[in-house]
């Protein structure tokens, strides 16, 4: 490939609320730019993980390069950079946006603006992207594109009267979008002769080539042999190959120069060397400063992951290591639990990230897992002046050593139709929310703003939100910081023995309620034994709730004759097998399920 005229390049992304049609529009753009035949199209090309397809969300950002012949007769290179659509991956979204020069905002013609729409638009505007709106799904019976256009103008302040009105699904008017990309998205800038400055926005691990780094060249040029250095991590390599993204494949090229989007390989063994947001420069001619905006991603949510079968511990470690090759934000370290044996304390960007990793471990690596209650990172200020970040409730110091504790707090925005405002406000109050304000988006919809402790939303906030608004509420949040809070460690005692895997940190005012619910739930989950089993919740050694699992009074096969002996043995073996899958705490067998059921205390 010869050097490309910058004015013929368009680097952009698509932003949208979940289900508003981002991936479908991406498919159509790829299809209509003619690089692929319809036969080659998978249903959704950008999302190539099974899990993503099932959940309808995009987990890892990826990019694709296509060529469009515009109505003016010129050929344009489109670099479409896909962004994850979930708040857990906000930082990754921001780095993907930083790799673009403009964004297409997709809004559903029936649903209008949602919480994520706003959050993403603001994020795009923060990155100085030129955003133009597209109204999608106009073929739906409930579509009201005029109202939605008005909403976009009123709420976001974007010109929307000439916004393409399309159906990405059927392809209707999608060529208008292609023309708008050429007209409204600015061409990239940057000097190909300047010192190299390239932004890493993603990377994947390939077992043959090592890490493949996805980057946007801001300044300078990179090619085979360029001695590169990652400015934040300090890692140095020599480039083996550069190229761009065909649909679903990597296509090598001579060089990547300012304004271009592509990939670099350099026999990089570890994805941790290629942090998203880091700047790549040329060791022999380094740039003065890295690109702004890099931060080291730190996990927000931690939990213990244990193999259901203790013998699978090495397999779990291997699987986590493999996943980490592609996911620098996944953290894990070995830990042991009295109740669960050997496992790992794992850190995630959020609860969705946790669920995705858990599902991938179970599905792709065939592992049966026991997960302990997720916990946020608490900050403990000790009386001796020491400050510690607590990721595992069992490591909480003695209360006498604690001066005070802090917990992470987020600012949350909930978009909801006015009839449910009361219900959602009540939910936020219950979750210790601090009301910040409310705006009416239109006569029937409001945007509620709250400050909420993160630990109140990592369990089941989404579910509660959905059920209390009959699915009409949408939600987005960002981390605000740490605030002082009255927190205690709640312990669960089963048959008077503390079960470490069930301990968690809770707001003091909620401890009694949570403890009571835990005990009730565990009572249902723990099978009856030959003896009575007290289940107690305790705070600082004081029992605050109690339930009892009654002793078994009868477990007998009344009738057994000669022909029954084999059958009976099978029955007993099954009974025994069931016990094997349980965890022994003291002399009580606890089913694996019990450890997880306590995560869903608010289910009715």
């Amino acid at each position, binding site marked *: 490939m010869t050097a490309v005229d910058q004015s013929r390049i368009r680097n952009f992304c698509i932003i949208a609320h979940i289900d508003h049609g981002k991936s479908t529009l991406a498919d159509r753009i790829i299809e209509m730019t003619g690089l692929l035949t319809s036969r080659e199209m998978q249903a959704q090309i950008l999302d190539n993980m099974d899990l993503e397809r099932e959940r309808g969300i995009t987990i890892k950002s990826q990019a694709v390069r296509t060529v469009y012949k515009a109505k003016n007769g010129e050929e344009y290179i489109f670099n479409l950079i896909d962004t994850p659509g979930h708040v857990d991956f906000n930082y990754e979204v921001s780095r993907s946006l930083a790799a673009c020069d403009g964004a297409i905002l997709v809004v559903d013609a029936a649903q209008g603006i949602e919480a994520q729409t706003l959050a993403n638009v603001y994020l795009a505007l923060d990155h100085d992207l030129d955003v133009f709106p597209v109204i999608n799904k106009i073929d739906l019976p409930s579509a009201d594109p005029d109202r939605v256009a008005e909403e976009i103008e009123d709420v976001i302040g974007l010109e929307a009267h000439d916004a393409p009105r399309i159906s990405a699904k059927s392809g209707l008017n999608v060529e208008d979008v292609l023309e708008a990309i050429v007209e409204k998205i600015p061409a990239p800038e940057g000097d190909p002769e300047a010192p190299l400055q390239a932004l890493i926005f993603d990377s994947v691990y390939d077992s043959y080539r090592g890490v493949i780094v996805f980057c946007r060249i801001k300044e300078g040029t990179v090619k085979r042999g360029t001695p590169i250095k990652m400015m934040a991590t300090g890692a140095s390599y020599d480039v083996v190959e550069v190229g761009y993204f065909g649909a679903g494949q990597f296509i090598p090229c001579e060089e990547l120069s300012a304004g271009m989007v592509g990939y670099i390989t350099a026999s990089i063994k570890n994805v941790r060397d290629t942090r998203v947001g880091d700047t790549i420069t040329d060791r022999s001619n380094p740039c003065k400063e890295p690109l702004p905006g890099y931060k080291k991603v730190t996990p927000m949510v931690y939990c213990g992951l244990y193999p259901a079968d203790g013998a699978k511990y090495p397999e779990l470690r291997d699987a986590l290591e493999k996943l980490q090759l592609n996911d620098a934000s996944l953290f894990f370290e070995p830990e042991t639990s009295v109740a669960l044996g050997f496992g790992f304390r794992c850190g995630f960007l959020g609860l969705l990230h946790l669920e995705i990793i858990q599902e991938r471990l179970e599905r792709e690596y065939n592992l049966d897992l026991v997960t302990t209650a997720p916990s946020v990172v608490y900050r403990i200020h000790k009386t001796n002046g020491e400050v510690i970040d607590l990721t595992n409730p069992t490591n909480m110091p003695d209360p006498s050593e604690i001066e005070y504790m802090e917990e992470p707090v987020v600012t949350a925005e909930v978009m909801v139709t006015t009839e449910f405002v009361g219900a959602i406000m009540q939910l936020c109050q219950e979750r210790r929310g601090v009301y910040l304000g409310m705006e009416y988006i239109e006569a029937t919809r409001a945007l509620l703003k709250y400050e909420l402790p993160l630990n109140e939303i990592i369990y089941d906030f989404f579910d509660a939100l959905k059920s209390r608004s009959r699915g009409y509420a949408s939600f987005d949040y960002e981390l605000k910081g740490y605030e002082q809070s009255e927190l205690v460690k709640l312990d669960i005692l089963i048959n008077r023995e503390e079960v470490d895997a069930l301990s968690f940190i809770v707001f003091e005012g909620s401890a009694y309620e949570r403890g009571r619910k835990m005990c009730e739930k565990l009572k249902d989950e723990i099978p009856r034994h*030959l*003896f009575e089993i007290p289940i107690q919740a305790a705070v600082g050694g004081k029992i605050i709730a109690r339930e009892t699992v009654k002793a*078994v*009074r*009868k*477990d*007998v*096969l*009344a*009738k*057994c*004759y*000669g*022909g029954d*002996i*084999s059958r*009976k*043995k099978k*029955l*007993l*073996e099954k*009974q*025994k097998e069931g*016990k094997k899958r349980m965890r022994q705490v003291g002399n009580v067998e606890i089913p694996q399920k019990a450890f997880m059921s306590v995560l869903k205390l608010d289910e009715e």
Partner: protein
Amino acid sequence: MELYVHIPFCVKKCAYCDFLSFPQGEEIQRRYVEKLMEEIRTVSAGFHDTPVSSVFVGGGTPSVLKARWMKELFDCLRASFHIEETAEISMEANPGTVDREKLRIYREAGINRLSFGLQSADNRELKALGRIHTWEEFLESFRLAREAGFSNLNVDLMSALPGQTVESWMDTLKKTADLDPEHISAYSLIIEEGTPFFEAYGNGRGDGILPDEDAEREMYHRTREFLKDRGYERYEISNYARPGMECRHNLGYWTGVSYLGLGLGASSYVNGCRFCNERDLGIYLGEKPGKRLDQEILTKKDMEEEFFYVGLRLVQGVSLKEFEERFGERAQDVYPGLMERLEKEGAAVLSDGRFRLTDYGMDVSNYVMAEFLQ
């Protein structure tokens, strides 16, 4: 060795019954008897000199067969096997299916023990179970059996029936004990899958109708106390007898004696090997007899496990000395710490070289027995 002979026919299937049994016309019954005799002649080949200490004819309702066919069967058995003079020869019979003449022929055939399936002395409970007889008809059958000279009679009873109370159960027990049978089996009802009872009461559908766990246990405990007062000792989880009148055939099952099963679906345990006969009547009637299904050769470990989980059904428990003689290892070494633990839990007692369940251990015997499976 013991013989079990299965007669898979009944007048009408009861609502709780999951045994291999069904109503059939006389023609099929006759073909069955002939096939059964063919089987007896075929499979006895390897056992001509093995003494047979007991025969049990079960079902189904064996007494639905014509009595002279039963006589034919026994003639065939005696011609093929070496049945000891003193052998216990039992047959199951349903009240209302026997008369004076039938009972006379049974005696002639050498049957010396009858087992009546009474289940309940309450006619409403009998009806709910789908039984074909009344309490009064049972009384008549029982009286006729005594008249015919049967001096060893068993009565089967069932507790934990739908709608049954502790009082109605005690009434059934009392009425039965008043008749002075030599043996009483008192089972608690098991709701088996695939029966009409399962449809009606399975998976929690019987809550509030079936006696709850506490009432059920009370029935069991009061049964033991009541029958003890009346001179019946519990010798197995659900079996009671006058001293010396325990069912020898059943004792054999629980002490590892070999048995050969004859007839449709019958199970055998011979030479350390368990197997089963064809269960489909059409196939059974059409094929050469002697085919073994589900054959399972027990390993030493299997036998050690069985020694406990079968033997512990008996009140006398198991002899640890016998274990050591049979397997060349001490039970304490095969199951380190287990017996001590069960003793500590109050489920079992170790004394005089025997390990046996306590009353409480009997109540939770599945739990205890499962511990011996490795």
